[in-house]
């Protein structure tokens, strides 16, 4: 079972995606930093309690599948048999309970029902809904509100699975991206570095002719955080002004004599450094957007699911 990589900058449970601090530019409190790299007592919510909830979920899977196969419902399995109603009720209550994770995580409470336990149960019981929901339907799908509820449930589950996957994999990539030979840089340091480079480029570009200066100015005016959600998620910035500026500057420089103290050379170097920093920053943005994006589907789909479930249940009793 995959374990979430431990991030030395963060607290025990928080990840870069959930931490408010990680997105702010205020300096981290150095005094409170605790090195736990060497001896880690960290236990992921995926392996919580030696996979207690994973085992329970597998149990639910096996039991519901076995009962589905061995209980003979005439004329065939569907949500309207006693077995279907039983699974449906269990599924409905389970969905409502799973939704309560959003309430639970906002309430900081001590005690046995730790948030980690709750999250672990959320993940595995959520997965067991695949069996409960599908067997409830008896594999009868169609173009109706009932299948809509099922489809939304599956969307929520799949987006949640994706979330688990990114939580398990991406923090490593994120750390790797932020580390280089000079050590790690924080989000704040990235912005500071960018500011500094922009200042240097601005100063270095002063001697340039109007044409070259205009090229540089475009790079300076670029808002690196402006890209669309798609650009962030895909890390695609085809209209990057800095890259365009480098290309243009080199084009202009090609037809000039090489001088001892060439402002073009200086600007070129600085722009290249800016580009490298931008690459790092944008990769960071991409990883963060992946870490966050699934929730933008998971949460709204959950509420759409609850609405569809209400319609599903009410419609059944309405046309009883």
């Amino acid at each position: 079972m995959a374990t979430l990589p431990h991030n030395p900058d963060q607290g025990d449970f928080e990840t870069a995606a959930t931490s408010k601090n990680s997105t702010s530019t205020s300096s981290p409190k150095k005094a409170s930093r605790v090195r736990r790299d060497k001896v880690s007592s960290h236990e992921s919510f995926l392996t919580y309690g030696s996979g207690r909830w994973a085992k329970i979920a597998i149990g639910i899977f096996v039991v519901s599948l076995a009962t589905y196969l061995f209980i003979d419902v005439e004329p065939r399995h569907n949500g309207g048999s006693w077995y279907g109603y039983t699974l449906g009720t269990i599924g409905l209550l389970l969905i409502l309970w799973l939704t309560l994770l959003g309430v639970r995580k906002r309430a900081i409470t001590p005690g046995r029902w730790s948030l980690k336990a709750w999250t672990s149960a959320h993940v595995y019981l959520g997965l067991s809904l695949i069996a409960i929901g599908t067997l409830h339907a008896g594999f009868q799908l169609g173009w109706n509100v009932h299948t809509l509820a099922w489809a939304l449930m599956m969307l929520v589950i799949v987006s949640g699975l994706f979330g688990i996957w990114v939580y398990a994999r991406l923090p490593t990539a994120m750390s790797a991206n932020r580390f280089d030979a000079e050590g790690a840089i924080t989000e704040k340091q990235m912005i500071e570095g960018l500011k500094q480079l922009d200042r240097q480029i601005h100063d270095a570009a002063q001697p340039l002719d109007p044409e070259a200066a205009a090229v540089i100015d475009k790079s300076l005016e670029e808002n690196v955080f402006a890209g669309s959600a798609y650009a962030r998620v895909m890390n695609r910035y085809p209209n990057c002004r800095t890259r365009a500026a480098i290309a243009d500057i080199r084009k202009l420089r090609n037809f000039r004599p090489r001088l001892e103290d060439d402002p073009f050379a200086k600007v070129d170097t600085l722009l290249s450094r800016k580009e490298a920093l931008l690459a790092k920053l944008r990769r960071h943005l991409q990883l963060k957007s992946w870490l966050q994006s699934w929730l933008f589907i998971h949460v709204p789909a959950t509420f759409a699911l609850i609405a569809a479930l209400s319609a599903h249940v009410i419609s059944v009793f309405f046309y009883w």
Partner: protein
Amino acid sequence: MSFLVRQIALKASGGEIVRAKRVDGDEMKIGRDGNCGIHLPDLGVDPEAALVTQLDETHIEIESLTNLPFECDGLKVTRKELDVTNGSELVFGSHRIKLGQDPRSRFPTFTVRRETPMAHSSADNDLTDVYTLKGKVPGKRMSAWAFAAMVAIAFLAWPIYSYATYNDLALKKDGVRPAGFHADKMWESGKLSVAHKGLENDCQSCHVEPFVAVRDNACLTCHKQDAHDHIKVANATDRLVQARGEPTGFAGFQRAVGSTFNKPAGRCVECHTEHEGEGAMAATDQKFCTECHDGMKARLPDTKLPDAADFGTSHPQFMPAVITNAAPEKPVVKRIAWTPNAKEFGGLKFTHAQHLSTTNGVAQMVRRRPSEFPEQSGLDCENCHQADPSGTWFKPVVMEESCQTCHSLTFDQVGGTFRTLRHGEPEMVVADLRSFFAGGAPVRPANLGGMARRQPGDSSAAGVAKDYARAVRFYPTQANQAITMLFNKGGACFDCHTIIPGGAATGGYNIQNVAQTQRYLQKGWFTHDRHTKFECVDCHLKAETSNDATDLLIPGLGGKGGCRDCHVGQGGASLASVKQPVESGCAMCHDYHADDGAPWMSRQPASRRASVDRKRNAGSAGTTSR
């Protein structure tokens, strides 16, 4: 003359730093170049962008050095004469230059201020959420409410509106909604069966009231004639419920839950489940029958019906309706319990075994007449028993068609025409005979006449004369004698019929009525049509051994040739014990809403039946072959 230039820079803390300098001369350049009087460290400004020339004490001229326009009081110009006392504004790149006149020295003043930061990154942006997707995609809370509202409106509010709009069409046979989309169709969990296809667009025809489970009155809106009552007594429902008994255990719990949720027991839809997908309604499952009929005697002591459950294990013996007395005008028919030695008295004498033999005189007679019985070594069942057009039953055996070809009633020949006695009309038979004998002795052979040609010699003539004399001697010279012979042992009538005393018109004899049973099992359904791959004697075993027409030849429940040879009931337990097991639930032979026709399940075309069977058999251990 001079110019006063005041360059204002912002401090990090927010305050301003003012750097003032005096540029002497009548001319001054504006540009990015460090040598310019007004130095604008701005990449948007040319190294030498414009030239300021003092014209007189209050007027200056500004002229672009690059032919590129600059902004002056909101207008793009390349050259402009200005009165400094009016306080104009110039814009070069990101810098705004305010013009004025120093009140003391009367020099023109240029107050330079950077309007936009030199780089986007150096602007004082709010960086709290720049690393998040905030603002890039719709917020979670907002889209959650939006999607939930959309779903609730489209899939809940709209269908309810559809229902409310057309509710007045409910319980009206011809109340149909206009074609097109109705939102409550989105609630449909599965297609209706083929029989109800026409109702597909009319939810209200069955779902009459909200939160009230479908009631029988909705079904009976259309099914007025064809819903044959299962039992035809006044208190039918009470008896049905009584027969079912009070459910216990889990069934009791189910009943309780059903009642709690307003689903009363005993409605049509309990058996006739709908929305199970396009196709025919599934045949009724056996358990719906056995719920009542298994051990019914205990719950319904006054019932005449024996208990019945699975056909293979607990079905009562057949009770065929047989003729016990064919003599009256209307034969007496009685249902008796089938036994191997059961008797039926149809009034005929017939020897099945003798007729089916391949070695006796009957067989020889058949073999002698290959034009009528081609390639037969003896009689076959179908020489007499012909299926009716439906293939279900057999037509009654008719003497003229089946018997007379051998059992001839010919008594005279006139020219090439044979005269026969009229079957079924004893009075005419007697009358014909009397008339025949009134005509005298047998015809005298021609060759006994003097002029006739004959074989030479007397011996031949003597032989003919002897034959004739014998014929005359033995010929019934009186009609009464012939009639007596006919109706007594050895006579044509007596061979097959029971002779009873009769009136004078029939010579004191008469023929007892004959009756044939076409359908023995009135309460269950059997069709020969579906059993054509078997020989008749596979089931009608005794046909090959019985020489008594009163032997009941229909097969019974079990034993050799019985139905259970193949039909083993529903469920897998007993399937393995026979060679060709056929899974047979109650519905194969019985109908809940029974009429005279085939039960609903057997009425299906074979292809449909096969698919129903497949569905039913899916998951059960046994396999069936048909």
